[in-house]
């Protein structure tokens, strides 16, 4: 089984130095592209490979690139979104820490494809080890002539900078990330104009996820058909899948796209901890709808998870067991989203704390029957189309699905806690 993204990662997870990366074929894709491919040909290849964005939205990477006007004057920007902060998500950390050159090569090839001359790694502050390793790898790449002026004698120029953030989940939203890089509050921008046309400092800009860009050198080296065949389903490639929660062996694995929820939990994560039963899981981070025991055979790819009423998201799953309170679980998620709301639009800023208060009341025995209606209503008020960006609708995904699948848990809390309080 091919694991192109992780096969060369050392057991001790220490990063591959430049010469070690070159020994296993590193920077060959860059040579190939600079020697004999046009930017348009690279874009066409990536489009043909059917690579979809691994940051959560799943948009076609090649198609995204094609919106950049090729004749626009420089500067143009290529940015890697390495601000991994979706609760329950820990996949990009591995690539950032252990294979920095793979990411850098992916960035240079991608920058060539859109003819960008400036690139940024927007890295989460908490990833200290990654910061150190990427900084060093960028330095090595400059020294070797893979970055800077006239790369490998091709006439193509590219600079790369590491920017470490200062917190806030909002920075992961593409346009908020751009505002943050411009030294502003990380609030989202109205679209259109889309960043591909008017992004960082008003210039054409592409923002891609870490895992997405790490796929690029392999697609260039081995072709679009090879990449498609890595997958078990119609979505191409491999995927970094993770499982956390009360399973026997929480972890992260690169597997063919389209393994089932059951395989992830039972085979790779070793099943539930003794004495616990699987009740549900958020398949791709905190802002995805619950899947339940009825969905164990769902394939973890974009269309299959969508057909089951959720989203593949980041592909890192958080498991809910039968001894963990559903109300507490959802409250924890809503607390996160309420705290991380940028405050820019009203439904999100006001609605999320309100929901948190209601859930808190239910948990503390102060819940009322009417609260259920209030929660139902809020999943609509904060849903798609009513807010400026995807933060609040994302927050409603676990809530609405919990109210759907685990409604009795909420109702029982309201009923029994009230009774218990009355006894006191």
């Amino acid at each position, binding site marked *: 089984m091919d694991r192109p993204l992780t096969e060369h990662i050392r057991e001790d997870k220490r990063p591959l130095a430049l010469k070690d990366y070159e020994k296993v074929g590193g920077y060959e894709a860059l040579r190939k592209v600079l020697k004999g491919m046009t930017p348009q040909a690279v874009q066409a290849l990536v489009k043909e490979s059917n690579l979809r964005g691994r940051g959560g939205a799943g948009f076609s990477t090649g198609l995204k690139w094609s919106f950049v006007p090729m004749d626009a004057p420089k500067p143009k920007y290529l940015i890697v979104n390495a601000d991994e902060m979706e*609760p329950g998500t820990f996949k990009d950390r591995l690539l950032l820490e252990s294979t920095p050159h793979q990411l850098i090569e992916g960035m240079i090839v991608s920058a060539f494809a859109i003819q960008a001359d400036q690139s940024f790694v927007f890295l989460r502050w908490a990833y*200290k080890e990654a910061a150190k390793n990427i900084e060093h790898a960028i330095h090595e790449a400059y020294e070797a002539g893979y970055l800077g002026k006239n790369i490998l004698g091709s006439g193509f120029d590219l*600079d790369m900078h590491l920017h470490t953030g200062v917190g806030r989940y909002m920075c992961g939203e593409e346009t908020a990330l751009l505002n943050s890089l411009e030294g502003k509050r990380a609030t989202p921008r109205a679209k259109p104009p889309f960043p591909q046309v008017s992004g960082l*400092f008003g210039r054409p800009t592409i923002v891609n996820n870490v895992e997405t860009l790490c796929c690029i050198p392999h697609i260039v080296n081995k072709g679009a058909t090879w990449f498609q065949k890595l997958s078990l389903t119609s979505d191409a490639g491999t995927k970094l899948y993770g499982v956390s929660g009360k399973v026997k062996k929480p972890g992260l694995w690169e597997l063919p796209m389209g393994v089932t929820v059951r395989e992830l939990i039972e085979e790779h994560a070793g099943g539930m901890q003794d004495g616990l039963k699987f009740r549900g899981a958020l398949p791709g981070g905190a802002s995805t709808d619950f899947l339940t025991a009825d969905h164990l055979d769902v394939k973890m790819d974009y269309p299959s998870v969508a057909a089951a009423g959720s989203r593949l998201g980041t592909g890192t799953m*958080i498991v809910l067991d039968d001894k963990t309170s559903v109300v*507490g679980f959802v409250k*924890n998620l809503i607390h996160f989203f309420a705290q991380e709301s*940028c405050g820019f639009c009203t439904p999100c800023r006001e609605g999320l704390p309100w929901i948190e208060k209601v859930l808190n009341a239910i948990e503390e025995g102060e819940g009322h029957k009417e609260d259920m209606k209030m929660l139902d209503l809020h999943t609509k008020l904060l849903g798609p189309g009513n807010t400026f960006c995807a933060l609040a609708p994302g927050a409603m995904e676990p809530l609405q699905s919990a109210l759907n699948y685990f409604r009795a848990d909420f109702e029982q809390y309201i009923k029994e806690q009230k009774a218990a309080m009355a006894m006191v």
Partner: protein
Amino acid sequence: MESEIWNMKTNESMLTAEEKHKIDEAISIVPYKKAACIEALKAVQSHRRWISDDSLKDIAAYMEMSSEELDSVATFYNMIYRKPVGRHIILLCDSISCWVMGYENIRTAVMQRLKIKYGQTTLDDRFTLLPNPCLGTCDHAPALMIDNDLYRDVRVDQLEEILDRYA
């Protein structure tokens, strides 16, 4: 011009040569000064632990922006500290995987041991305790960071030994 006016108001800028050097470096890669203001806040905070009102004014003057505008940025980001913090900062992950894995026990133990709550600093100025969203190491929950060090699969019985490493 604007910076001169600000300098007059706040007397001489107290930014050190080293801080200015770091800020200048950040300014050199963006099209206009203001765009590097987060880097400037980081640079000064790395030397002074936090951003005081005086520091804020000095940085704003250097970046040719009003201190109000800079403060609107500084207060948005949770890793820019606008209140004094201790020598070491404990960031306790309170997000979903850590919650499922029982981070609340770690929280209680740290608070009892250090006799502080979230947002507080120990009397000896040694630790500040802050809640923090997901640290991105969910397969090793519960997790916490102290300064630049990440601790994973943390158990209550390890806390004493971990905290003892920080003077």
